[in-house]
């Protein structure tokens, strides 16, 4: 394996892993802030219990999101230093802004919230959680505007062969960034929604399936389930709408990615949408692919019109070659790829199936949320075991949908790390093969790949173990025993 392959694997593993924590953090922290707001406004005990219970799960996950995020900020310099030199003038700015404006707020106010119970006035304490959760959403915005610039570079001019920022405003209002941000945040709420539904449904079934007693715990779970299901429903609608916007932008900005997502080899007008393909989708000539399709839907998805032509992979290749050349530049830093023909077609099975898994798993999760709402209408509690099982399993589905979406969007832009903007400044693009650090050996990157993967693996086991433990324990696990009296000079309302 050469440095490029190892570096790409490392980036993929660390990013997808980090992105398991991020959506839950964003969604759940705002949901907990809403619960605490309800408690501060109404004083009802079950809102406090909800805040404490879901807040504890949020914190177990938050810690992992923070520490895995640090790796992201460093690895551009470690393994992608040629990339960092090329784009630093543009790409560094949103990262610095994220640190100064968002991450500082998030980390500081989260500490205040964790330790501030009963040390801070109620409203101030609540404001700390709002600050931390909104700042983590703002973090996502800055990071996604940096990433979206790689997908669709705007706000720049070309100086001495390098992009130079001319408008930070253009970068922050990049249509790609706004679409990606709304889509990702909706995805975060979808994750939080199914998380609430799954765990609440299990508790309701476990303790309350046979009893009609309306105790405090039951209130916690039924309210959480309702809240989660509604959040899920709204979030999935938003995911679909924003995904549609994002798709339309991608057809304009990265036609090859969308053609690959559809395994659309030849231009069609009207183009049909492939639901499911069998045969070998990895060949760009599609010789063996049979596909179940919906006629004209792809034209609509691409251009809001049922008859417009959508270009296929085979017809896009010559267009890319004409614009960006047939061969890689002759440059020793490109190693074996130097002077070789450029393959403009991204990995077809990954993009094709990534796209389908994203939509499919999202759809399953949405269905589970809807089902939960129906089965628990007017305070009913399902007595059969299949429903809580299904609800628990469905927790995994929006995570999978998010991961596949992320993999699809990153793999789909290959061979570029900075994708040329079809209507932007000519010449601003970068091949992934050029981006990797010169002078860093495959051995070094392999060392870090193995070390990070091993540590991440262990931490994944620990996080899931703790989440399950706290989720199972329910409210009793997070509320102090009732007989514990608090003194006035309580220095530590909460302690590690």
């Amino acid at each position, binding site marked *: 394996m050469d440095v490029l392959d190892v570096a790409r694997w490392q980036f993929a593993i660390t990013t997808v892993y980090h992105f398991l924590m991020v959506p839950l953090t964003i969604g759940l922290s705002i949901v907990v802030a809403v619960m605490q707001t309800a408690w501060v406004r109404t004083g009802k005990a079950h809102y406090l219990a909800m805040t404490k219970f879901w807040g504890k799960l949020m914190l177990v996950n938050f810690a992992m999101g923070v*520490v895995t995020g640090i790796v992201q*900020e460093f690895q551009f*310099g470690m393994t992608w230093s040629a990339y960092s030199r090329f784009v630093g003038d*543009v*790409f560094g700015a949103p990262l610095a802004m994220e640190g100064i404006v968002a991450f500082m707020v998030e980390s500081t106010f989260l500490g205040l919230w964790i330790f501030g119970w009963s040390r801070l006035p109620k409203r101030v304490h609540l404001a700390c959680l709002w600050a931390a959760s909104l700042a983590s959403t703002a973090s996502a915005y800055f990071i996604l505007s940096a990433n979206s610039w790689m997908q669709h570079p705007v706000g720049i001019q070309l100086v001495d062969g390098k992009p130079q920022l001319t408008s930070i405003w253009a970068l922050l209002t990049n249509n790609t960034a706004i679409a990606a941000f709304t889509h990702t945040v909706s995805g975060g709420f979808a994750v939080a929604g199914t998380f609430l539904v799954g765990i609440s449904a299990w508790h309701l079934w476990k303790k309350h399936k046979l009893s009609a007693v309306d105790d405090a715990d039951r209130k916690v779970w039924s309210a959480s389930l309702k809240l989660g299901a509604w959040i899920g429903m709204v979030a999935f609608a938003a995911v679909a709408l924003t995904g549609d916007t994002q798709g339309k932008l991608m057809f304009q900005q990265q036609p090859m990615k969308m053609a690959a997502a559809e395994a659309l080899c030849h231009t069609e007008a009207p183009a049909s949408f492939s639901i499911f393909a069998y045969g070998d989708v990895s060949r760009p000539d599609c010789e063996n692919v049979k596909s179940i399709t919906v006629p004209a839907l792809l034209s609509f998805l691409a251009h809001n019109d049922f008859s417009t032509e959508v270009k296929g992979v085979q017809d896009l290749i010559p267009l890319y070659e004409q614009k960006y050349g047939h061969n890689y530049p002759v440059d020793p830093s490109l190693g074996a790829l130097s002077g070789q023909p450029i393959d403009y077609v991204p990995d077809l099975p990954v993009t094709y199936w990534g796209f389908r898994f994203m939509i499919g798993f999202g759809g399953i999760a949405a269905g589970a949320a809807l089902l939960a709402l129906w089965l628990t209408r007017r305070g009913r509690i399902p007595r059969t075991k299949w429903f809580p099982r299904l609800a628990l399993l469905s927790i995994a589905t929006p995570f999978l949908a998010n991961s596949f979406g992320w993999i699809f969007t990153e793999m789909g832009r290959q061979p570029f790390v900075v994708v040329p903007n079809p209507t932007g400044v000519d010449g601003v693009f970068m091949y992934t093969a050029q981006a990797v650090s010169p002078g*860093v050996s495959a051995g070094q990157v392999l060392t870090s790949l193995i070390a990070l993967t091993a540590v991440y693996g262990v931490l994944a086991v*620990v996080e899931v173990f703790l989440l399950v433990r706290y989720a199972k324990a329910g409210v009793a696990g997070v509320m102090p025993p009732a007989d514990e009296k608090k003194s006035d000079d309580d*220095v530590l309302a909460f302690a*590690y």
Partner: protein
Amino acid sequence: MDLPTLWFWVIAVLWTGYFFLEGFDFGVGMLTRLLARDNTERRVLVNTIGPVWDGNEVWVIVAIGATFAAFPPWYATMLSAEYLPVLLILLALIGRGVAFEYRGKVDSDRWRRGWDLVILLGSWIPPLGWGLVITGVATGLPIGKDGVLVGGLGALFTWPAVLGALALAGFSLLHGSVFVALKTDGEIRHRAHALALRFGPLLLLPMAALLVLVQVRQGGLVTIVIAAVGLLAGAGALVRLAAKREGQAFALLGLVIAAAVMSLFGSDFPAIISSTVDPSFSLTVANSASSPYTLGVITWVAAFGTPAILVYQGWTYWVFRKRISAAHIPPVHVP
């Protein structure tokens, strides 16, 4: 002062802030084995920094992010040349952050012992690593064309860099001891004070040696004065510590780290990373800075953001200003 020069010093200030703030919380982490006698005392130590360590850590995120935005070649060269030390730092920070949060989540001695080890390693490795990296960068490395390190891993262990690693670790341990003396009550407070007093001179020795070595090698008049201020502040901190004025000692230690970072950064100025292979490969403030527009953008963001950060982080320290002791530690309550 032009914008590139301003940002060079802003980054120096960010590192100062990081070493000052996270310095003491690294020190507290290092002390969990040296100072605490049982689990309750270990919890006292961890909880002195519980509400603030995460906010302290962000200073390094901002320092690195600002370097990326203001001087991309600096960011790219430093992190790729110092690949393995930076990797170790990252692994340590990952484990440490999770350990604080997870340590008390299960009531089992084995569980706690495991995380305590992670806290210990996670608190020793970053100051050693950052000391090595920052001193190495500030005193020159064998950097070839395109910021590629010539000479492998061994080339990173120059004398000043090794001294820098010891200096920052020693400083952090002392800084942490003084912080514990300031922040706790009861027996542990006196033990922390005694430890700081007894080992203070030894812990500051590498820092003093580093300041002298760097000034002898590459100092100018201004940086020599700054380094001298640092040495005096270190001596002053030890004197005030002996007089049981821990707050003053803590503040003087802040002056020590500020002087150390400023004299280190300043003695190579306007070079950022001097190449010991060929001066034409050196990164300088002029040849590494981003465009005036980008620098202007982040200057505005920093101009509004930094005062806010200082206010709300300062407020955090005010909210959690009370001393804590073993008596304040609530019983373990876990599922």
